[in-house]
């Protein structure tokens, strides 16, 4: 660009030339402190004064109480560390337990009511009985509950959700008894299963006689969806995607 080369004269850069205005020839960025060194471990002259802290606020004078105060602090820290060391694994274990066994979501209904859940309506009728035909007589402290469970699909999705429900008899205080499905008239295929038509499960349960009036019948609808003419791979993929928990329970009081 420029037509002519400019020539510069030589100039000394190192060691730096002493200049008259500077304090010396040193390249140190900060000047060294030229004074007598402080005594190394001089004992503190007295209690430290923190500016802004009124001394009257402190309950004890810090100098003699310093050692017990620090001991108390250490003991507190040790106790806290122990508490945390116990609490954290316990909490973690409990969370693992709860993840594997989530709490049920219980929906309670009065006797004879119809419960609608996930495209299906459920109804329960309970009959008490002292003996079953063809069985030996029952012990006097027990009673059979013959439960008739009615399910009605409200739409085609309700037909897809036709998995066998779990039935259990529960007392409000948490005790429960087995209930077994003995018979049902629910069609196996979707073609025969009609929307709006009631189908039944006959369920049998043995409970203590004294509690027969207090227990409620709890139905856990299956979240399994049976789609017909679906390939095995598709159903596996769909099941992995849906991952619906079976944690809803419909309880019918007596």
């Amino acid at each position, binding site marked *: 660009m420029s037509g002519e080369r400019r020539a510069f004269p030589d100039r000394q850069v190192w060691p730096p030339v002493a200049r008259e205005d500077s304090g010396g020839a040193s390249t140190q960025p900060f000047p060294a402190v030229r004074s007598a060194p402080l005594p190394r471990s001089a004992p503190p002259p007295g209690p430290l004064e923190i500016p802004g802290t009124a001394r009257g606020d402190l309950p004890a004078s810090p100098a003699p109480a310093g050692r017990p105060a620090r001991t108390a602090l250490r003991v507190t820290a040790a106790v806290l560390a122990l508490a945390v060391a116990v609490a954290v694994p316990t909490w973690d274990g409990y969370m693992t337990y709860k993840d594997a066994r989530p709490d049920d979501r219980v929906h309670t209904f009065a006797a004879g009511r119809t419960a609608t859940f996930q495209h299906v309506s459920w109804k329960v009728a309970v009959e008490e009985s002292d003996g079953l035909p063809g069985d030996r007589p029952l012990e006097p402290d027990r009673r059979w509950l013959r439960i008739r469970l009615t399910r009605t699909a409200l739409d085609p999705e309700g037909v897809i959700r036709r998995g066998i429900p779990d039935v259990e008899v529960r007392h409000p205080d948490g005790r429960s*008894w087995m209930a077994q499905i003995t018979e049902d008239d629910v069609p196996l295929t979707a073609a025969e299963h009609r929307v709006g038509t009631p189908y039944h499960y006959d369920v049998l349960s043995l409970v203590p006689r004294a509690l027969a009036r207090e227990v409620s019948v709890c139905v856990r609808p299956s979240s399994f969806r049976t789609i017909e003419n679906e390939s095995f791979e598709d159903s596996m993929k769909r099941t992995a995607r849906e991952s619906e928990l079976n944690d809803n329970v419909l309880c019918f009081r007596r």
Partner: protein
Amino acid sequence: MARSAPGRWRRLGGLLTGAVLATAAVAAQSFAFSRDDYSGPLTWTGGLGETVTASRISVRAEGVHAARAIEAGTSPGTSSGTGQRATTKGIFLVVDLAATSTRVPQRIAPPVLLTESGRRYAATDKVNGDLTITGPFIQWGWWVRKAAVFEVPPAELAGARIVVHPQEGNGGLIEPSAPEVEIDLGLDEAAAARLVSTAKDVHTLAGKP
């Protein structure tokens, strides 16, 4: 010189304290729980005839018998008729159990006989499990009375204890601190010898096959 001597002693004391603490920390590891201890059961103990209530089940051992053979219904694998007889080269120990649940329905896992020598005998599979305590559901409100049957050498009877525990839930996890009931059958040397000498030839398990 006069000031450095106490400082040196203090430093030596500090080092010693540190060494002692480190040794104590290493030694304390020998008291640490093993994996088995962590996942092991919680045991409730009792004697013959006592009701032992664990967290999930209550169990009572009501009687102890010995027999040379057990007559029972069909075992699940066989298709022969009723009255099948199980025999042994040792002896059958029959413990009459009564069990109930504390809250929710339970099933009893095959019980274990714990001997004085520390050996564990599982309940025999020569009899139909449905006729023993493992068969029915145990529910709140009434006692289920069924036997547990063990096949053991007669010499192992003295000092034997029975261990009863509920089946694990289907939570998919191995449960730590699961409950179990351990009942001392009260068999000293003399009682064990008497039990063997008075053993019945055939003991019949009650119940529908």
